């Protein structure tokens, strides 16, 4: 793509220093998101998908966490080099975040009106009454009935799905250019999940905003994403347009994940193909390919050298030493 990306992250390394040693949470990942695009980041728990986004937002608790290396270019600024005051101007206003658990990420002792107007008053020169009116229109927009009356309610008076709507209203309060949604539907039932996905897609089209959607659910990804990054043990292992990824997955891990999913729209044909073993401990500095111990294709080289992302077709990158169609090691390595 020729457009300049909205956010361009290069070689991000995030580690946590804990009494047991160093947790290698994110090990040098690069990704970008273009204006108006939906990027999905997929992976299992502990793969570094949330940590990488929190790093970008400057929300990693330090200590124990440190951003060891990398840069995040937004506009012409490197977010990692900004002073806290400058970051506060961007966070919430230009890049906003929706968190996973709507039960714990709202403050239980403040009314939701107070929580929504806080961001508005903080970022804009606006009176309390104007902020209230804006909050009402935001709640209307995310589909909360009788918004005017509900502004003075507390979070416990809302259901899970409604709370997630409130969270989205808060994130959208300042018309951000980029919305980072960290597993926004994981805690919700499927029918409510469908409501929230529909809502975010509709708002994205209205406002032409870019979305990074973090999830572990490959089903949800198929319905929302333009492009997908698959993460494993702190690395991006595959990156592709959504149709390419599902039609022609190139990394053994992606293939394994897709094979282990039962389908609601198919009759049962076979047993599920499971991936043997479990994800590696992040306390050990990775040597070689992180997926090697669980990989059916592994060769000698996988043990010693970590594969870099290479392009297999236009826009489709995979970090693997093996061409899984032939099962042979790629030439020129």
């Amino acid at each position, binding site marked *: 793509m020729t457009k300049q990306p909205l956010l361009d992250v290069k070689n991000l390394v995030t580690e946590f220093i804990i009494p047991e040693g160093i947790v290698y949470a994110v090990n040098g990942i690069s990704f970008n998101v273009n204006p108006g695009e939906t990027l999905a980041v997929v992976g299992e728990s502990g793969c570094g998908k949330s940590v990488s986004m929190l790093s970008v937002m400057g929300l990693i608790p330090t200590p124990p966490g440190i951003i060891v290396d990398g840069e995040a270019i937004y506009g012409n600024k490197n977010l990692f080099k900004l002073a806290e005051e400058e970051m506060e101007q961007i966070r919430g206003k230009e890049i906003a975040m929706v968190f996973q658990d709507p039960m714990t990420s709202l403050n239980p002792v403040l009314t939701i009106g107070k929580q929504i107007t806080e961001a508005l008053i903080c970022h804009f020169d606006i009176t309390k009454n104007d902020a209230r009116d804006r909050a009402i229109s935001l709640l209307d927009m995310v589909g909360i009935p009788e918004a005017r009356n509900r502004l003075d309610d507390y979070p416990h008076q809302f259901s899970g799905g409604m709370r997630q709507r409130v969270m989205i209203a808060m994130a959208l309060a300042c018309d951000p250019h980029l919305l980072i949604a960290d597993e926004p539907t994981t805690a919700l039932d*499927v029918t409510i999940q*469908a409501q929230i996905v529909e809502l975010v897609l509709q708002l994205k089209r209205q406002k032409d905003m870019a979305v990074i959607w973090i999830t572990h659910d490959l089903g949800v990804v198929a319905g929302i994403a333009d492009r997908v990054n698959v993460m494993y043990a702190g690395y991006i292992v595959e990156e592709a347009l*959504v*149709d390419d990824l599902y039609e022609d997955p190139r990394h053994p891990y992606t293939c394994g994940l897709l094979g282990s999913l039962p*389908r609601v729209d198919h009759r*049962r044909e076979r047993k599920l193909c*499971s991936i043997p073993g*479990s*994800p590696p401990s992040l306390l050990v500095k990775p040597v070689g390919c992180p997926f090697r111990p669980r990989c059916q294709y592994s060769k000698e080289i996988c043990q010693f050298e970590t594969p870099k992302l290479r392009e297999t077709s236009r826009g489709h990158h995979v970090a693997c030493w093996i061409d899984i169609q032939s099962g042979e090691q790629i030439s020129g390595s």
Partner: protein
Amino acid sequence: MDPEPLVIVEKLKKYFPVKKGLVFQKQSGFVKAVDEVSFEICRGETLGLVGESGCGKTTVGRTMLGLYPITEGKVVIEKLDIAKADRNKLHRLRQKAQMIFQDPYASLNPRWTVSAIISEPIWVHHLAHSEKEKIERVQELMKLVGLSPRLINRFPHEFSGGQRQRIGIARALASQPEFIVCDEPISALDVSIQAQVVNLLEELQDQFQLTYLFIAHDLSMVRHICDRVAVMYLGTLVESADRDELYENPLHPYTKALLSAVPIPDPKKDRMRHRIILQGDVPSPISPPSGCRFHTRCPMEKPHCGELVPVFKEAAPRHWVACHEIT
């Protein structure tokens, strides 16, 4: 169909009292968690019980095993009526009927070793005659669920989520049961581990002719593992049918909406699909809507739906549904 089902549930009701006041508590109503649920499970069959959170599916499972006293109705497992059983009979029942719990982090005692956890049912039901036999049995069970017997003296915190769930499965198998209630056994696990545990459950079923009640909210997994599926909404059954019949030809508007909301991991197909998006949330089970409990969110609602409770009837062979609009 088997002439004699292993498990019969008839008009099962479970109400929890709601109390008001801190000191002088007054009973102010009931949470009608389960209201007139009936189904049967044949030997060797897997019945899936699906629904959204709070619909009462876990309560059904727990009440069936006598973990909650039954408010009304009948549960018969292996010809034993739970409501009428005394302590001794319940004890015998619990050897035959076991449970696998949802949260592998909360359902294992953190101070007990794996050996103690798995051997407790063996000890309680006198299934081993000596200490040596007991340990051998534990090791055998660990091998069966894919854990190395060398780990016998470890504590639960030393295992990952998937391994803990395997410990939970070994514990359930320890008493040599015939019927196991699996209460969302995979929803706390990562995707790549879910498939491992589901395959294990299927292998064990083949090996020991087990009968499962599989409680879940993941409709794709239920289609994979279950022979028959029952859909619950707000404490009542709305539809039940054989697996492929239910997924290919759903009759109840709630089932249709539920199935259309399940994401499909196939972007092209997903885009072509028509989604039925239900409005609003599940109403409170303390004062459920009158008549058909789904009428407040139903896209096909008619005036009489709010007045008459629909009968759970057989609309097609082996396909039961509770809706006024379907005859």
